[in-house]
């Protein structure tokens, strides 16, 4: 066994390196890999006494249960719709803002506006929701504004038809400024002589945006779009958890919130593990699919 002898020798020689990676290795092993091993309870009747391995296999029972559950269709539909609408409204917003920032001519003004626009990104979801609740009350800011247009007061957070609008628009408010950073970085690589050439050709500003700026941010856009597509089921359920209530469950209840209620609050561990596994599976397929699509269409891919 010359090779294993060599390996031991190499390990001894690199013992400091091995010592250095050990804590990180153990943390990842325990807190990332053990839960992966724990996914098996999605296929088992979990008994805390007999442990994860000792529990009996039940096959796809919980998956079948989920798809027969009338709630399943509701949470799947809500998750998908919130994801699609968030992408549709939320994805273009920072791109447009970055292009507008780029047209600002006074550097100081530009810097100040940018800095202010990043602010909501740093504020916790709990605070955002606290403010949002105050503004959406019967006598809150939103109703005061609505009253200028002659609208009757609405208790926004109890109205299912308002939930998506409030959720998505507040997401955009939080993320639009910070979302411009990567696009602005791409725009800063534009060679200024390109603009001079365009000026000589008599191009107007819209033409310059279309023919100079857009091609520069296109690769960034595609990569971020792939990531967003694969995250379409990954709605920020923590925010929903703070924003929804039984009045709005019919549109607001998503996979994440359902998992939390049934799993952590209701202790239906096997059933909710199965749902979680299903969600990760779909997310993985989406990531691979989106990446393949993008590679075909534009030669850009994330791996």
């Amino acid at each position: 066994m010359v090779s294993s002898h060599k390996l031991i020798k190499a390990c001894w020689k690199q013992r400091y390196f091995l010592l250095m990676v050990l804590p990180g290795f153990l943390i990842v092993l325990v807190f990332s890999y053990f839960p992966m091993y724990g996914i098996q309870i999605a296929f088992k009747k979990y008994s805390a006494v007999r442990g994860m391995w000792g529990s009996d296999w039940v096959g796809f029972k919980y998956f079948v249960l989920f798809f027969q559950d009338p709630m399943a269709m509701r949470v799947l539909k809500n998750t998908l719709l919130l994801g699609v609408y968030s992408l549709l409204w939320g994805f273009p917003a920072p791109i447009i803002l970055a292009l507008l920032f780029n047209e600002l001519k006074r550097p100081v003004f530009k810097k100040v506006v940018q800095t202010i626009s990043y602010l909501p990104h740093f504020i916790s979801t709990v605070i955002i929701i606290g403010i949002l609740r105050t503004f959406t009350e019967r006598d809150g800011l939103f109703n005061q504004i609505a009253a200028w247009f002659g609208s009757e007061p609405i208790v926004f957070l109890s109205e299912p038809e308002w939930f998506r609008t409030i959720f998505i628009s507040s997401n955009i408010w939080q993320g639009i400024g910070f979302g411009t950073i990567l696009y602005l970085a791409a725009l800063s690589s534009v060679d200024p002589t390109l603009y001079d050439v365009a000026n000589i050709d008599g191009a107007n500003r819209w033409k310059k945006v279309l023919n100079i700026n857009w091609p520069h941010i296109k690769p960034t856009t595609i990569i971020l779009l792939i990531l967003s597509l694969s995250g379409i089921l990954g709605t920020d359920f923590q925010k929903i958890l703070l924003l929804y209530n039984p009045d709005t469950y019919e549109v607001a209840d998503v996979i994440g919130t359902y998992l939390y209620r049934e799993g952590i609050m209701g202790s239906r561990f096997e059933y909710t593990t199965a749902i979680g596994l299903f969600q990760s599976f779909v997310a993985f397929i989406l990531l691979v699919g989106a990446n393949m699509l993008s590679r075909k269409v534009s030669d850009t891919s994330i791996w």
Partner: protein
Amino acid sequence: MVGKESVGSRIFDLVNMVLMLLLCVAMLYPFLNVIATSLSNSEHILRGDITIFPKGFNIGGYKYILKDPFLYSGYAHSIIYAIGSTLFMLTFTSLMAYPLTIPDFVAKKFLSIFLVITMFFSGGLIPSYLLARSLHLLDTYWIIIIPGCVSAFNVFLFRSFYQTIPADLRESAVIDGANDIQILVKIMLPLSKPLLATFALFGIVGSWNSWFEALVYLQDENKYPLQLILRKYLFSISFDSGTGTEVMQAMLSQMNISSKNIQMAIVVVVMFPIMVIYPFLQKYFVKGVMIGAVKG
């Protein structure tokens, strides 16, 4: 720039300027309104005529929350969780990333794959919760601090940063008889101060603003971070409706404050540290996003 600009171009500049000012108002107004409300008289709050300046002057809301011992314990715990998780994150990430830059490190390939897998697959909420339960980590500080402190993404970022440090530095240190722990501490870490500062801020802000892990893993209110104390004020204690609130209402009106004074006061108190370091913070965050982008 060409001297003459078309009318259309100038109109666009004007419109763009107005849009930017509106954007600033939309970003700042909510926060100014919260501060103003927290300091206003209850009659004005009920009338809803507060904009960005306090009407009347009333610090009753602050007095009320400063009497709550949970506010202090929340602050203390948020600081413990933020500093603890950030220190562990920086230490373990640095330690793990450095050997991965050494071309002939024996475990290099294995560890890279070991880490990449966690970027695509995870056990999910429920198995993680069951693990914490079976390890008896529920209601401990460790379950808030440790699990998130080593992420594959950060390790790879640190590694690519170390790779920009010339290899000659290490080689000459080896010749001088330094071992690799000394090299990491005395050469690599001092050279990566900007990286460490950026990630320290990422870690502290992330931890300060997080609340869901604490909600899942902690039942003991004495260990709650500030965000959960805030949540309790905003949600569980419903001052304005429901049963059994008459006593509360009477007490509040005796103190001449409204429940909004209290809620907005605690929002301000929780927001305060972030606002103070904000100018500094945003600069580093922008840098951090760039580091991530170069890698990703």
